[in-house]
């Protein structure tokens, strides 16, 4: 259950520090008068609301750098003042020139700028590398090239009618975000979905994790110069997308999860999907085994792009990259929702925090996703999925957290009496993890950036919004 507490502005530093000891810090968002700091606990999301009307709030960015980007965003978008924040640049590119990159200073430092348009089929972003010799000293990232000002545009729109737009904020985590949004509206309406619907949602979310993780491993293979692995991985991702299309009439499963249930016609033939996935599973296992048995691939990815649990914690990072630092953090178990509670999800972790560890976590999660899908389809084979229920969107405010393929996805939504949006805020797993990509690049050479970056494989679109 979502819960909200009030914190006095003068106690922000102390109270947020205490909360971060016992709960997972999820970041913060604001309207013009209040800042809301979000935390995830087993009982649900806890929101600590602070009045921002009476003057500047203390910046938390020095002690807890996870608030760095959030504070920059709140200052730019809602005009909230923070005392003591060293980085005064706006987070999003506004009407003026693109904010200057922060670079390392000193003799022999070279600065290399890449982007916003990249060499591959990649979303836009500017990466500014400060290098000493061949080694990266500092990486500055500038995003928001895909900024559409979505949150402002959603204000005043009907909360139910915008569900297809929520599904299209970001193509690669559409299912996770649709599910998060559906759960938010359902919780405000006091609506519970039946067992079959909940198992269907698990199938859809795990299919999304599956195609993303297989794609990520294919990209890691590519980054390591292992062309055969790239080809095999892309072929398997395609096969999975074809099965997604057969199950939901859409390759990326847009609109498969809707407020009130799953769309009519989704997962009509669980037995056929189960049989097809068993065949795909054997092929995926073969692809993964070949990749991990290739010594030149392993040598290439071991030790590259190091992360660690302390950095992950300070930056509020999550998902496979954080689990690859040995941290057992997963919203599916920390705050189990839907049918996950009864599925006994096994959390995969790895040690080392490098590209190899991230690949290892994804390898384990692929196996677990296949297991969760198979178990859920077995239930669905014996029951039928009902039509989506009608959601009576009540007045209220809630934040919901879901585990997407890149980590914890949250949607915060405030609905007015007439069922329209007062405030919508999306914090994606990519937003939570991007700062750690920059840290993981320190000490690596620029040509390893594709390898390091793709081992996180974060999105830009849900970061930019």
């Amino acid at each position, binding site marked *: 259950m979502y819960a909200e507490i009030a914190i006095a502005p003068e106690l922000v530093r102390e109270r947020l520090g205490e909360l971060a000891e016992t709960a997972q810090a999820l970041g913060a968002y604001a309207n013009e008068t209040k800042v809301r700091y979000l935390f995830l606990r087993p009982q649900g999301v806890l929101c600590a609301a602070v009045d921002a009307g009476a003057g500047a709030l203390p910046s938390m960015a020095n002690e807890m750098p996870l608030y760095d980007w959030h504070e920059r965003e709140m200052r730019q978008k809602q005009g909230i003042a923070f005392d003591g924040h060293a980085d005064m640049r706006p987070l999003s590119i506004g009407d003026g020139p693109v904010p200057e990159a922060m670079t390392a200073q000193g003799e022999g430092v070279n600065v290399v700028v890449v982007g*916003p348009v990249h060499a591959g089929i990649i979303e836009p972003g500017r990466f500014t590398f400060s290098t000493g010799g061949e080694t990266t000293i500092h990486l500055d990232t500038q995003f928001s090239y895909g900024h559409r*000002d979505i949150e402002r545009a959603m204000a005043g729109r009907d909360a139910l009618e915008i569900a297809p737009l929520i599904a299209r904020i*970001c193509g690669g985590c559409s299912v996770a975000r649709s599910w998060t949004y559906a759960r938010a509206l359902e919780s405000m309406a006091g609506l519970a979905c039946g067992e079959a619907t909940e198992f269907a949602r698990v199938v859809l979310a795990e299919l999304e994790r599956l195609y993303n993780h297989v794609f990520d491993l294919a990209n890691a293979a590519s980054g390591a110069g292992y062309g055969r692995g790239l080809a095999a991985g892309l*072929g398997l991702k395609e096969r999975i997308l074809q099965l997604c299309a057969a199950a939901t009439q859409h390759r990326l499963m847009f609109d498969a999860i809707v407020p009130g249930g799953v769309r009519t016609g989704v997962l009509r033939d669980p037995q056929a999907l189960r049989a097809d996935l068993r065949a795909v599973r054997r092929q995926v296992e073969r692809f993964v085994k070949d990749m991990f048995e290739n010594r030149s691939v392993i040598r290439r990815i071991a030790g590259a792009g190091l992360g660690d649990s302390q950095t992950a914690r300070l930056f509020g990072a999550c998902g496979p990259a954080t689990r690859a630092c040995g941290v057992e953090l997963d919203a599916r178990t920390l705050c189990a929702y839907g049918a996950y509670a009864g599925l006994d999800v096994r959390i995969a972790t790895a040690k080392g925090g490098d590209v190899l560890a991230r690949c290892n976590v994804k390898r384990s999660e692929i196996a677990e996703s296949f297991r969760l899908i198979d178990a859920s389809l077995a239930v669905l084979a014996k029951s039928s999925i009902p039509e989506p229920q009608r959601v009576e969107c009540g007045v209220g405010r809630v934040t919901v957290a879901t585990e997407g393929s890149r980590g914890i996805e949250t949607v915060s939504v405030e609905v007015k009496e007439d069922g329209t949006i007062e405030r919508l805020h999306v914090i994606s797993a990519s937003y939570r993890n991007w700062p750690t990509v920059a840290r993981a690049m320190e000490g690596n050479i620029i040509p390893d950036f594709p390898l390091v970056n793709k081992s996180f494989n974060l999105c830009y679109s849900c970061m930019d919004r």
Partner: protein
Amino acid sequence: MSKIYERSLSIRHLVCGSCNGCEHEMNALAGPAYDITQHGWDLVASPRHADVITVSGPMTEAMRDAAAATLAATPHPMVVVAIGDCAIGVGPWSGVGSAGDGAGPELGARVTVRGCPPNPEEIVRGLREAAQLLDDA
């Protein structure tokens, strides 16, 4: 008349506020299922090597300059192909917030590929159309 471009097309992709759905499908072109290299086509790393610029997304404020610079760096003859509903101006984000009315119309696209996102087969069809335009020019 010899069909040069139909057998040798260099493609550069430009993302202008897309949700990355179109990029998932563009990436599929390089995989074994669609493998556009079988036609002699290639996804190239610089607009200076390109015959075709594929664009996705409604167009965002921040991408306008970079998109113009990309087109300016592309040698002629060239064709812009609008990939997906957003780029055509009929997508979910057209005119929403600060998003524009389609990167395609803004950048003079002569070929359009519908879909949210379009299937890889549809993208291949659009690329073939672009090759024909270049060959007929």
